[in-house]
């Protein structure tokens, strides 16, 4: 069964004003339990607006959002439940740290869910461990942490609620390659341990390609495609036309195909490219 489902979801900013803009246009998608989904799109393509519907921060102008099969905008109780089932980590979440200590900041969500102090404590320690924050840091002020640690503390605050779908908007932006990898490891681990769906919004095709089971490509508020990475990247040329940058290896293979070489059109990681080329070159004499 799907954890998140939208039915003809439409969202319009500034209805009845001269600035009226259809940000999400008739989107019907399904995200399965435990699935890893990447959402990609040009700035203004509607991806952030879309995810804000998943936990009821925005109400659809038309259509429905079903979480766990239930229409979250049907009544207030459903909406509150949806907020705990779907965890949303915004871009630059470290700007939202506000408590006196890292511990209290991570505990904020579980406490609001009505968990006991004991349960909250367990959740906090488990989440801190998962994001790789040392116990010693929990008593510190969040403002004493390094940039990367702050980011992980903020993610821990959402993870501590143990949502059934964890959604992160550009979780790796501004980080160095090692920091990026670390964040994606955390997301993958959360998925494995909780069998939770994880959804990452990103501009970086490289980051998304290595992680997602399926990629949702948004363009001008609509679904451009929602498919497995190989099938999405086989449309590399169209992706470039809608303003997305495809991985460099994908472009290299596109050019080789144009030169007449018979190569697959769905290459999107270096490892895959290496394997394909080795297969083709296998019989040749090596230097």
């Amino acid at each position, binding site marked *: 069964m799907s954890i998140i489902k939208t039915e003809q979801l439409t969202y319009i900013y500034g209805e009845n004003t001269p600035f009226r803009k259809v940000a999400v246009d008739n989107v019907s998608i399904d995200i399965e339990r435990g699935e890893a989904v990447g959402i990609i799109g040009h*700035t203004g393509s509607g991806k952030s607006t879309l995810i804000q519907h998943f936990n009821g921060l925005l109400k659809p102008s038309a259509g429905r959002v079903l979480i766990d099969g239930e229409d979250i905008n049907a009544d207030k109780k459903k909406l509150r439940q949806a907020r705990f089932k779907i965890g949303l980590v915004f871009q630059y979440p470290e700007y939202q740290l506000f408590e006196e200590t890292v511990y209290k900041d991570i505990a904020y969500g579980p406490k609001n869910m009505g968990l006991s102090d004991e349960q909250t404590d367990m959740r906090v320690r488990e989440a801190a461990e998962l994001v790789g924050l040392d116990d010693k840091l929990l008593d510190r002020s969040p403002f004493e942490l390094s940039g990367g640690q702050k980011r992980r503390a903020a993610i821990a605050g959402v993870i501590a609620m143990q949502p059934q779908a964890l959604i992160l908007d550009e979780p790796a932006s*501004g980080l160095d390659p*090692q*920091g990026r990898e670390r964040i994606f490891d955390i997301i993958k681990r959360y998925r494995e341990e909780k069998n939770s769906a994880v959804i990452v919004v990103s501009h970086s095709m490289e980051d998304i390609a290595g992680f997602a089971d399926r990629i949702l490509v948004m363009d001008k508020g609509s679904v451009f495609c929602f498919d497995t990475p190989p099938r999405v990247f086989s449309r590399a040329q169209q992706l470039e036309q809608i303003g997305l940058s495809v991985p460099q290896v994908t472009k*290299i293979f596109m*050019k080789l195909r144009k030169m007449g070489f018979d190569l697959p059109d769905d290459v999107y990681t270096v490892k895959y490219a*290496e394997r394909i*080329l080795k297969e083709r070159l296998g019989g040749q004499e090596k230097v």
Partner: protein
Amino acid sequence: MDNFIQAKDLKFSFTDNYSEKPVKNEVLKNISLNIERGSFVALLGHNGSGKSTLAKCFNAIYLPEGGKVYVNGMDTAEEKNLMDIRRSAGMVFQDPDNQIVATIVEEDVAFALENLGVEPAEIRRRVDDSLKTVGMYEYRMHAPHRLSGGQKQRVAIAGILAMQPECILLDEPTAMLDPQGRREVMETIKKLNRENGVTIVLITHYMDEAAQADRVVVIDDGEIILDSAPKQVFSQVQTMKNLGLDVPQATELAYRLSKAGYDMPADILYEDECVQAIARLLKG
């Protein structure tokens, strides 16, 4: 050789006042580096490697604890040089929203000039020129908050440009931008370097951006580890990975094939080179 920036045995440290006992944290250890006038240098290093601190030493936001930094021949440690140093080496930061102060684009670009007491007619001319250079002239009467990230960052660059600096230091100017914004900013930086002869020091985490520089300096733990042309630096795939950095995918693919024994050049950096080399292999 004409050096615009010279660092000699530069040392710098922060003191961590939050710990029980103040801990001195050496950020830059004996850095000696010259940046030639008119060159385009990329600084790479993982978070906390010291690269931003180094850039801040280049326009006297930080002063050396040991050693010397000269900007256009001026010692950054001497207070009387401060204004001239800041004017000749301008800095652009990561977040465009933190750098824009006015409510109209052209007023923002004029901000520094007004503070410097430049003649109104001269301000007009320089603001127009700067906005044209970064391709934002048509937006001169717009409100900055309605611009895209890439546009805002170009306005921030125009504000620096209006001071007619010889050098611009950019600290991850594209980190918060989408691919379109990144392209716009990179094109602007390259144009300033090639057409206007502005010396560029670019800090970035994007390896494809560093690959566009004349020279790449890699910093780790406060020391210079590699300093060479992009091709030489990125061909050291293993060293880069050990430093927590990355290489362009074209380089990595070539490296892996060459390691597997195929006849691939070790210093491939650009897409087209990689395409040619693979085509040669496939033809046999």
